[in-house]
């Protein structure tokens, strides 16, 4: 099993790699190179940074076409994390409206800081929606670590589980080979390691 962490030049990729090693994933490549990504069985789209900067990098390198080929045409399993999850959606209003990769029917907008402190940072409870591959053999409500100012909402069924902060938003989704978590599984102790394990074993 070979997994590629898609490197788009931002944030802490090291902690994802180290979490994967911890759950005995041996073959990990960190790359934005099309060949490397093609050779991998699974993709992880990590997530720190701003939506606009990330999309600019992705489009600049032609990574959007590569990801489209691998994820939509070849149906390789992909897990988007935090910003990486948001990038899989249609659009975000961060720094003006920007188009995402458009793989999933979700839109991203900002939390209202009149009602809650923004960013939403810390562990929060996610009501796990079953049946689920990501949460297989896990309890109904669990704590995961979030750190974000923008949230995804979806009008259709994308296998989403919810978290509540000011209002309900998409904490995770899973639809076919495409999955995403708004929280950071690599920073959520045992709960998060279990989610990564499920992604590696069941997708």
């Amino acid at each position, binding site marked *: 099993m070979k997994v590629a962490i898609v490197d788009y030049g931002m*944030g802490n990729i090291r*902690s994802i790699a180290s979490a994967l090693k911890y759950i005995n994933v041996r073959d990990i490549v960190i790359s934005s190179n099309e060949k490397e990504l093609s050779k991998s069985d699974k993709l992880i789209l990590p997530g720190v*940074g701003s939506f606009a900067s990330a999309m600019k990098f992705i489009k600049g390198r032609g990574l959007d076409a590569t990801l489209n080929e691998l994820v939509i045409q070849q149906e390789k399993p992909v897990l988007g994390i935090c910003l990486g999850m948001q990038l899989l959606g249609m659009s975000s209003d961060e720094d003006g409206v920007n188009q995402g990769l458009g793989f999933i029917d979700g839109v991203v907008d900002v939390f209202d800081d009149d009602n809650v*402190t923004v960013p939403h940072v810390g*562990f929060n409870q996610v009501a796990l929606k079953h049946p689920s591959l990501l949460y297989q053999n896990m309890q109904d409500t669990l704590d995961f670590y979030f*750190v974000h100012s923008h949230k995804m909402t979806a009008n259709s069924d994308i296998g989403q589980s919810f978290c509540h902060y000011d209002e309900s938003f998409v904490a995770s989704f899973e639809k076919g080979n495409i999955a995403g978590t708004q929280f950071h599984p*690599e920073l959520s102790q045992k709960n998060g*390691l279990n989610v990564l394990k499920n992604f590696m074993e069941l997708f």
Partner: protein
Amino acid sequence: MLRKRIIFTLIYENGFFNQSRNFRLQKVGNIDWLEKNYRLQDISFSLDEIIVLNASKGDKDIKRFATILNRLVDDVFIPIAAGGGVNSIADAEMLFKNGADKIVLNSALYEKPNMVKEIVQHYGKQSVVASVDYINQDVFIKNGVQKIDTPLDLYIKHIESLNVGEVYLNSIEQDGTGFGYDIDTIQKISSEIKIPLIVAGGAGNEKHLLKAISMGNVNAVATANLFNFIGDGWPNARRYMLENNCNLAEWKS
């Protein structure tokens, strides 16, 4: 429900971890000592985040600091924030690449606001923690030695205008005393602040942590006290706080 957080701060200076008292540092041990006395892989199950600060005087040797950071965070699956002497985007990038999930900025908030904005722009506001050292209404930068002309409450507004993600509010007067947090100032600042607030300085035991964490707009309590939470200190503190209905995350096996 959003949980509150317990944060352990490690003060690093030229190869050593330190106990700080009113910002005077006392060498405790190097990374071998730290790993022997605080197995971070184990105690991270009692913590929500770890902050590592480079308080080296003069040349901060951020490269060496990054190497230590890299070793420190192995197999630790909670967020790590790191900072101290971040003077450029390249410095920030080096810390991110070596295991930091967030960057802590202090003097740059005052001296290089444009660089702060640039880091925020690139890495997102949630990746930036603004550290503020104060005594009463006076704010100090440069490891707490240089007083600036902006009073604390206005300085917090200035920081918010830079669009950073969180504020780490540290009382120089309470620092390392173990007498408890500066509740009066925390009360004042927390009633006005619009972004998440981490309070630091003065915690000597779990009762102090519980008192501050129970305050309305306080999102997290931090302590850099290397002596008071040694051994089973952290697991015991977390258990005590959970028993007292503190709103903390729980990890079931």
